[in-house]
């Protein structure tokens, strides 16, 4: 059994054997809520494909993406940190598939198997670095640079060069008005880095896009590589 999820894949064969009987495969449609705000977390999710978005909510249905997790990580981090809920909302922004398990058995496994616990804690550290750099980017980088960063981060978490997303959705991710997304996509397309069509962005020149993103991209990715292993 070869997992696409980087954490499941990185575990020792013995630790994989511990988890395997508890993992249930399912597909996840776009929009599926994995974690509802301020409600007990009942499952943890190891994504095999697709991408989830962690949203900090600001009253009503306003909010901004503060982090993302795909096959690089898992959803349900508060459980590793001895918390049973979070004020964030986590949902699938790109459809995919996952292995999930119940939170009770997950807690028990964490208590009994240091190898699993340590890997997941190292992921929490890697994820935490990602969110701090999201904060940095939101304050210091232009919309174009932040869009480039976001596209690179999505591209890291899938095999294909085509990323399925709407302008509406990108506006939520970047915390900007939709026309700002239209303009930013147009600029990156004008530079030849991407091709934007309705509901889809295709990465054309990844290295050039990385160069354009500059300091907006790279530090959390290097940290992930140091703590866990290959991201892409």
């Amino acid at each position, binding site marked *: 059994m070869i997992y696409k999820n980087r954490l499941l894949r990185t575990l020792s064969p013995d630790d994989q054997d511990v988890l395997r009987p508890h993992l249930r495969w399912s597909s996840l449609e776009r929009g599926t809520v994995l974690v509802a705000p301020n409600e007990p977390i009942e499952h943890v999710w190891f994504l095999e494909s697709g991408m989830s978005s962690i949203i900090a909510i600001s009253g009503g249905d306003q909010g901004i993406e503060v982090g993302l997790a795909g096959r690089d990580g898992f959803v349900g981090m508060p459980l590793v940190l001895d918390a049973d809920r979070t004020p964030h909302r986590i949902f699938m922004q790109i459809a995919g598939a996952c292995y999930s398990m119940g939170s009770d058995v997950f807690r028990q496994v964490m208590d009994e198997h240091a190898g699993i616990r340590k890997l997941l804690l190292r992921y929490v550290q890697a994820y935490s670095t990602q969110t701090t750099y999201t904060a940095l980017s939101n304050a210091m980088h232009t919309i174009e640079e932040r869009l480039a960063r976001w596209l690179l981060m999505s591209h890291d978490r899938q095999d294909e060069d085509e990323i399925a997303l709407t302008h509406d959705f990108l506006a939520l991710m970047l915390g900007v008005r939709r026309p700002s997304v239209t*303009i930013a996509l147009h600029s990156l397309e004008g530079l030849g880095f991407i091709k934007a069509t309705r509901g889809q962005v295709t990465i054309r020149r990844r290295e050039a896009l990385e160069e354009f993103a500059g300091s907006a991209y790279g530090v959390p990715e290097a940290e992930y590589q140091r703590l866990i292993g290959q991201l892409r």
Partner: protein
Amino acid sequence: MPRFFLHIDDGTQRIEDEEGSELPDLAAAHEEALAAARQFWAAAILRQQDIGSRRFVISDDEGTVLDTVEMDEALPRDLRDRLQGR
């Protein structure tokens, strides 16, 4: 809700809004264009760029132009008055 398309025209080219937004009415689309224009100005000022020649062209899903919104309309009124007085 009807779908409105907020294209951006800078005098030489038009950047098409291919997806559009669902909004209650044309007045809401006009407001959305103004809010976006303020965001454009914020970025433009940081770059020391003048985007006063740009405008939003609002159309319906058949491409019929319903309204245009000049970038200048998004500037604070007293600033606009001051610029016009020069």
